[in-house]
């Protein structure tokens, strides 16, 4: 008998040698048992399938964008089609992949296990959040298949409310609904982390993954309602001609940008903070060390969440805000850069005197360190007012945020998927292929996006369909497109070998990495309620000292 997942692409793993052992995968069978599940681990898998689907949709749009830009003239698609492509690429990747990626998959799977709980605080609300995501996603798919949107994912007014005939309201509703899915996930995590920690699991014994998710959840809870309100206002102006943003109706177009970025800047931290949490776990495990400066890393997550709400207008330095507000927001942008820098320094210091293993998750962590550092440092350029005037709305910005969101968030996501894959699937992935994929992603990524920094300083504006007036930009664009092709291969590879490993991979032991953390103290895959008996925590986080103590035999790291 085989359990049925509501997705034909993923074959279900069979566990011949563990046939008698019940776990969350074989506890119940049938599509119904998945669609009605309240098990956080099953919901995490539902999310994994759905966001992978959207990742490849968004990636397909990206590939078409890069192909169009291979030549200066607009020759592959029509101008309107191109505008829809980058709009849908942004919307799908931001709202349907990046924001749910780590929290809804790895967070859902791991938050209860890491704190020693049986499930999240509100299991049914957790399922509801997946359904909201799916309804939002289905609406977005419908919107894309019946015409799409051409405003850019930023929906700037008055273009979006009065000058485009595309399906703004439908896309808005899709994002509105998906936003509630995000709010409910955040709510669930906050309550779970506060109320459901196992005995002895104090705040300063929490894995830093949990701190990162706690900070993320606060942003989701407080920020997301603002984008929901903004979408309602856009729909009201579009449908009812209420004068909110369009000056012709008595509105103020800058009001929209303030509201939009009040959510959408913190949303960047929704994407990157969980990834920072993943990287922290991986670096600790593969250096066999406790994290250097635990409290600084923990509180820097909270600091990022708080300061993240105070820097939105750095997207608007040339939008027509006053010189003095620009000054304030530039200053605060440097304030939010500091906690990120502190994290990078602490990760680096953790490596010092470690015992470092080069397994695939660690390669992703190294990749993250490199790419996130470049992404963060180029943020200093953009926060410098005098330079921002020149490079904002150019490819410099495109390169910068891809270094953060793809170089940072997606590297962390892939690293995390590999690291916890034995726990999720009960199987080991093929290490050689995984290392190769990490290398390909790193090379492809840099080749795609580094030339865009140069393009941006040269002055190439973003969202240009046709650059035949400036053929001097072509060589860098060709490099970028070549890189994107390599990057695409790098993303397809894990899809293939992870699927393969579900059937053919070696069965994983309880703790194949000999890693710290409660999630490794239960079976792989875990039973439905995670632990056979409630764990009692008597040790600090990252107790690699005890795990590697000489009286224990050295556990070989899985290959």
């Amino acid at each position, binding site marked *: 008998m085989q359990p049925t997942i509501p997705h034909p692409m993923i074959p279900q793993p069979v566990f011949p040698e563990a046939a008698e052992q019940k776990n969350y995968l074989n506890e119940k069978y049938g599509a119904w048992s998945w669609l009605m599940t309240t098990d956080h681990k099953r919901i995490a898998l539902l999310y994994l399938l759905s966001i992978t689907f959207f990742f490849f949709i968004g990636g397909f749009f990206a590939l078409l964008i890069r192909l169009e830009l291979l030549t200066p003239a607009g020759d592959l698609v029509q101008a309107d089609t191109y505008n829809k492509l980058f709009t849908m690429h942004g919307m799908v990747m931001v709202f349907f992949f990046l924001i749910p990626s780590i929290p809804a998959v790895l967070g859902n799977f791991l938050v209860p296990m890491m704190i020693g709980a049986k499930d999240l605080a509100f299991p049914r609300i957790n399922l509801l959040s997946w359904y909201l995501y799916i309804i939002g996603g289905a609406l977005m798919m419908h919107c894309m298949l019946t015409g799409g949107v051409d405003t850019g994912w930023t929906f700037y007014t008055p273009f979006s409310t009065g000058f485009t005939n595309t399906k703004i309201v439908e896309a808005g509703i899709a994002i509105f609904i998906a936003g509630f899915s995000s709010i409910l996930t955040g709510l669930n995590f906050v309550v779970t982390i506060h109320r459901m920690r196992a005995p002895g699991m104090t705040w300063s014994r929490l894995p830093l993954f949990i701190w990162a998710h706690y900070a993320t959840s606060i942003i989701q809870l407080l920020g997301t309602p603002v984008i929901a309100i903004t979408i309602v206002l856009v729909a009201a102006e579009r449908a009812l001609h209420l004068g909110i943003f369009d000056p012709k109706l008595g509105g103020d177009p800058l009001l929209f940008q303030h509201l939009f970025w009040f959510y959408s800047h913190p949303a960047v931290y929704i994407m990157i903070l969980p990834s920072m949490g993943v990287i922290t776990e991986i670096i600790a495990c593969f250096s066999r*060390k406790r994290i250097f400066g635990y409290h600084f890393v923990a509180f820097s997550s909270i600091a990022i969440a708080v300061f993240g709400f105070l820097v939105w207008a750095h997207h608007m330095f040339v939008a027509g805000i006053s010189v003095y507000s620009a000054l304030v927001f530039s200053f605060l942008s440097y304030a939010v850069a500091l906690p990120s820098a502190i994290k990078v320094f602490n990760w680096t210091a953790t490596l010092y*005197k470690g015992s470092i293993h080069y397994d695939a998750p660690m390669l992703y962590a190294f990749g993250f360190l490199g790419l996130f550092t470049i992404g963060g440092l180029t943020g200093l350029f953009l926060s410098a007012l005098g330079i921002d*005037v020149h490079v*904002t709305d150019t490819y410099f910005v495109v390169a910068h945020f891809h270094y953060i969101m793809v170089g940072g968030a997606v590297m962390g996501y892939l690293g995390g998927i590999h690291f916890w894959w034995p726990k999720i699937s009960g199987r080991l992935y093929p290490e050689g292929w995984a290392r190769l994929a990490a290398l390909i992603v790193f090379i492809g990524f840099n080749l795609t996006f580094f030339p865009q920094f140069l393009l941006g300083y040269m002055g190439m504006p973003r969202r240009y369909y046709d650059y035949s007036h400036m053929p001097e930009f072509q060589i860098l664009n060709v490099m970028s497109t070549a890189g994107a092709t390599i990057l695409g291969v790098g993303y397809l590879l894990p899809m293939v070998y992870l699927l393969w490993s579900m059937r053919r991979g070696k069965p994983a032991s309880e703790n194949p990495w000999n890693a710290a953390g409660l999630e490794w103290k239960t079976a792989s895959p875990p039973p439905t309620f995670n632990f056979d008996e409630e764990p009692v925590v008597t040790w600090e986080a990252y107790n690699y000292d005890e795990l590697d103590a000489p009286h224990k035999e050295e556990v070989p790291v899985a290959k």
Partner: protein
Amino acid sequence: MLNNFPLWPDQASTMASRVDALYIFLLLVTGAMALLVFACVAFFAARFRHRPGVRAEQIEGSNALEITWSAIPFLIFMAIFGWGAFVFFQERTPPADAAEVYVVAKQWMWKVEHAEGQREINELHVPVGRDVKLIMTSQDVIHSFYIPAFRIKQDVLPGRYTVEWFRATKPGVYHLFCAEYCGTQHSGMVGSIVVQQPADYEAWMNGASTGPLSASGEKIFAELGCSTCHRSDTQGRGPNLQGVFGKPVQLDDGRTVTADENYLRESILDPGSKRVKGFQPIMPTFQGLVSEEQVNDLVAYIKAISLSKPINGAKTSANRAVSGDSSDTEGQTPPLPSGSKVQ
């Protein structure tokens, strides 16, 4: 091939070298920071790679180190912030005596009007060595007036004026881009900035003039009947506009505002919103009755009678039509780049 592969945009304004200096400083500082992090990671990863029998040494942390690597970057950040703000202040402070050029953006073209009356589309001629201030507005959506060779950019909004300025330093033809996404032909909303030697520029200016904007404004001012209330004495039902530009104005609701371009514009299109103290709310709105170009003309006129400068060429004002958009193609308008459309 490398001739066609520049890595640095032209430096063609006084601002370009200032922005580039800060950029190079940032490249060096961030390059050093990145190198430091990468070197540490690479060195630790190699030096402390796993060896059988050698255990990791557990280190809790170090407050001294944390404070050091917070404080030093913070000081560096503040230096960058200060320098960036200083350059920004220069970018955002047009010299008082700058030549004024009005820009009206629309999907998908740039309409340019020099104060002296020359009109251009998707081109802007300027002389080397003169401060030029652009007073910009949009007829429809948000655009952004971006000249990479000058390192300046400013969004152009409907319903208000935004301003940017530059002083060109090197003759040549430079890209003008729309940098804020504005719809289908966003990437076609490009043009050229033609920087000329003063003599060439004078020759170009004398090619054909339709009279200064302020003269057109004076004509519109009379035609629309503005002068019946805004008289040049104290007897009018509206405020006397002589000398009002740039001065503080007491409003009916007790506030005081400066009568800048945006205030004049707002008072024409939405007179009730900031009414001058002591006057009745009797002025009708001119929203929809005057085009963006005519508002610009009126503003130019009110400025001219305020600054007590002689109105250059006022006598030639009669030959310029007041009929708005149809005049786009008048005069010496240069040939249009392919793809742009005149409406």
